[in-house]
């Protein structure tokens, strides 16, 4: 029984492997592994919570469930931009924590074959690309693939840096 | 289906016995947690057979057994007991218990005992 179950999970993971939801921030195109994504919603009213880093915009009510939202632009230290009707919230579930990621717009879901995914060039590790663990090539385009878990886990480190 | 009254002060034991009985096509007519309740329930539910724990607060199984036998000479009571209680079981048998089973209860022991007692021809 357990075997069958785990096979199914494998199967599901198989169908999801290599599939990415792409979104854009400024001129760059990013990709996020589809298995993290639970849904995509339009921008909605956000309740501000005081004393948080600026990239955490506050909390939203997702059908009775209260989840935090993070502005990815601000997280990547880019210029803020007013939200409009193209602005989207990608709700992701990472290590059982739900969080909404605010992005300029969502593009599409694509499959990137494994051989087209490469390590990012090792220039200096600026804050910009420490959330990017791979780069995917699609035709002539390049998609920056997000390391979702880093979006949270680096927080304490960064807070420390800020404090110093 | 034959109706059984389960008498035991331990809720766990009642559940254990109930599980076994319901799995084996008995109807659990009721449960009692002590001797006094057992007597009331017996009169009220008129079960075909009773499983009776001996060590209970308020009123022991033996006393309840005596009272039930006084009320109904034909009552079928099976004592549920543990090793080391030989003396009490003997007393229970003297006072009309049809048989006894020993804890920890084994499913087939309980089922076979009850079935056999229920089958017994009353003519003897």
């Amino acid at each position, binding site marked *: 029984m357990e075997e069958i179950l785990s096979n199914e999970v494998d199967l599901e993971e198989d169908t999801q492997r290599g599939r990415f939801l792409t979104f854009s921030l400024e001129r760059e195109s990013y990709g996020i592994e589809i298995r993290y994504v639970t849904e995509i919603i339009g921008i909605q009213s956000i309740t501000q919570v*005081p004393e948080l880093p600026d990239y955490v915009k506050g909390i939203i009510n997702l059908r009775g469930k209260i989840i935090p939202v993070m502005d990815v632009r601000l997280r990547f230290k880019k210029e803020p931009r007013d939200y409009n009707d193209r602005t989207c919230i990608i709700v992701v579930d990472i290590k059982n924590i739900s969080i909404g990621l605010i992005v300029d717009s969502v593009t599409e879901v694509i499959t990137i074959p494994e051989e087209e995914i490469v390590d990012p060039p090792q220039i200096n590790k600026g804050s910009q690309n420490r959330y990017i663990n791979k780069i995917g090539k699609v035709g002539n385009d390049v998609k920056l693939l997000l390391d979702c878990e880093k979006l949270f886990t680096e927080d304490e480190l960064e807070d420390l840096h800020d404090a110093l | 289906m034959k109706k059984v009254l389960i008498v035991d002060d331990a809720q766990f034991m009642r559940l254990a016995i109930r599980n076994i009985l319901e799995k084996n096509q008995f109807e659990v007519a009721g449960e009692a947690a002590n001797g006094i309740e057992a007597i009331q329930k017996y009169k009220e539910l008129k079960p075909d057979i009773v499983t009776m724990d001996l060590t209970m607060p308020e009123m*022991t199984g033996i006393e309840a057994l005596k009272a039930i036998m006084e009320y109904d000479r034909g009552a079928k009571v099976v004592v549920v007991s543990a090793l080391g209680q030989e003396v009490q079981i003997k007393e229970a048998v003297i006072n009309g218990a049809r048989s006894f089973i020993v804890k920890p209860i084994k499913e087939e022991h309980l089922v076979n005992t009850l079935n056999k007692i229920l089958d017994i021809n009353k003519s003897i």
Partner: protein
Amino acid sequence: MSEEYINEPMLEMFLFESTQLIEQLEQSILDSDKEKCYTKTAINEIFRIMHTIKGSSAMMMFSEISGLAHSIEDLFYYIREENPQNIDCSALSDLILEGIDFIKIELEKIKNKDSADGKATTLIGTIKEFLYGLQQANNYKNIDKTKQKVEESKKQYYISQDKVITTVYKNAFKATIYFEDGCEMENIRAYTIIHNLNDITKEIYHIPEDIIEDEESVDIIKRDGFIVYLKSDLSYEKMFEFFKQTIFLKELELTQLENEDEFKQFLSEEPSEIQKKDYQIPKEQGKIKTNVTQSISQQSIISVNVSKLDKLMDLVGEMVIAEAMVIQNPDLRGLELDNFQKAAVQLSKITSEIQDMVMSVRMVPLSATFHKMNRIVRDMCKKLGKEVELKIIGEETEVDKNIIEHISDPLMHLVRNAIDHGFESVKNRELKGKSKSGTLTLEAKNSGSDVLIIVKDDGKGLNKEQILKKARENDLLYKNAEDMSDREIYNLILLPGFSTKEKVSEFSGRGVGMDVVSKNIETIGGTLSIESALDKGTMITLKIPLTLAIIDGMNIKVGNSTYTIPTISIRESFRPKEKDIIIDPDNNEMIMVRGQCYPILRIHEIYKVDTKVTNFTEGIIIMVEQDDKLLCIFADELIGQQQVVVKALPEYIRNFKKIKGIAGCTLLGDGRISLILDIGGLIDKR
């Protein structure tokens, strides 16, 4: 678990009931220990509890628990039956408490789905030794008894209800009976046959002859079967039918005897020796008690899984939100709807009744939590050589089940602390002219929507100088010692990194300080306050909310945001007048109300909210109170009062830091989120 009928509910029931019994047992032991003697009732109770646990755990195949329970049962059986003198009660209590601890730990393991791998062998050995010691000391009449047994057994050659056999039966039979393997107590089963045969005939002989007293009879019956000779008027068929009814019958050989030769072996003995009373058991004098009412009332109580109650609570919370969404629906604004209003009022009434009911279902008395402390007091006093009596007041006070879980540990810690640090040694107490034995009072009482739990000792009290010194050493002084009130000084011990004792003691020094206690209390919205007097004692008061889930709240508006203030903290609200506003040289804003001056806190400023209302006269002042401290909150306007369901902020947010002044959040009728203000936090923040 090999038995098929053992399932999850049974395991749950086993855990539930065993835990309950163990707690009951512990209480009984502690009570007896205090009285320095074990009463007959207590002995009976302990025996019965161990008997039950033995049975249940054996069924669940937890053999170590069952074995341990068995050994304690044996011990108490002996105590009950023989009533030995000079029992070392204290040693007995220690032993049984050790057993209780073992079972508790195993139950905990089982609960956590770990394997119950503890071994009780040593403890069982100790218990057996204790029993043996008792038997020796009391010159156990075993020896006499065996002698008696030998004498008696000589007499027991056959069983008969009458000494003189007057009836002459037509037929003679020999029956050999084998019982099924593993049916247990073959001798009693044999006895049952004989007992039933007594209805048919008076002339019965059997091998083995002594089936009750002789312990070997069980083995003989297993090996050779149980052989019965009897005479009867019944036919072979009827007799066969009779024996066939034997329960656990494996094999039956029944032969009709042609002559009585085989009976002669029994008759050679003197029949006059037969004693009818051999098989009679002294009748217990206990009469049927008539306290029927009690057993009936038990019937009307059922036990419910807590997770179901939690779920129910959540649903009620959802319902309260849904109700607000309907009644305060923006679509209704400006409409005159008489019938709707009437129906809405009715709905609100029912909702609030359901809510009260669900709350009350979740309420549990504090008694179990309080009584747990008995054990701690006893153990610690014994180890530290102190004498402390625990006094419990108001144990019937009820609080939400969730809250009980949260205060159990802090309370335990406070009690440990009190005994370890609070009370003097017996000698020191006598030197001070105090009673030899200290008194630790645990008290609970209701106070509005809070419950107060007070831990009070009559020990040495807190030493202010020492606290200040310690705080200075640890760099915890946040202002001049001279400027500090007593209360502020005492509160220093609640700071992280403060510990008054140099060496870590076994009990209170497990790396858990008062700061953790205070934190734990705060997480459930409670507060902790300390009062103390040198040589008189210390009193720690925990103020705990009755429930966590739903509060009465006042919604206020600041810019586009909504905040909720617990109604219980609100004293009054009013539109301020320009002339009452005072600004001190440091630019602190204050307001004068009836001759008193209170600080003002602008929500839009501290939470950086954009609003057009920055002029005091345009907005509203809400005066709030917490722990006798007052604060005036400035907001744009009041929206209205409603019951709100308290939700925690998402974990991700909470992980950043504890946001001072925000207790949680709630959903409004229109689906927006309102932040619930934590008044205590706001007062501290200022």
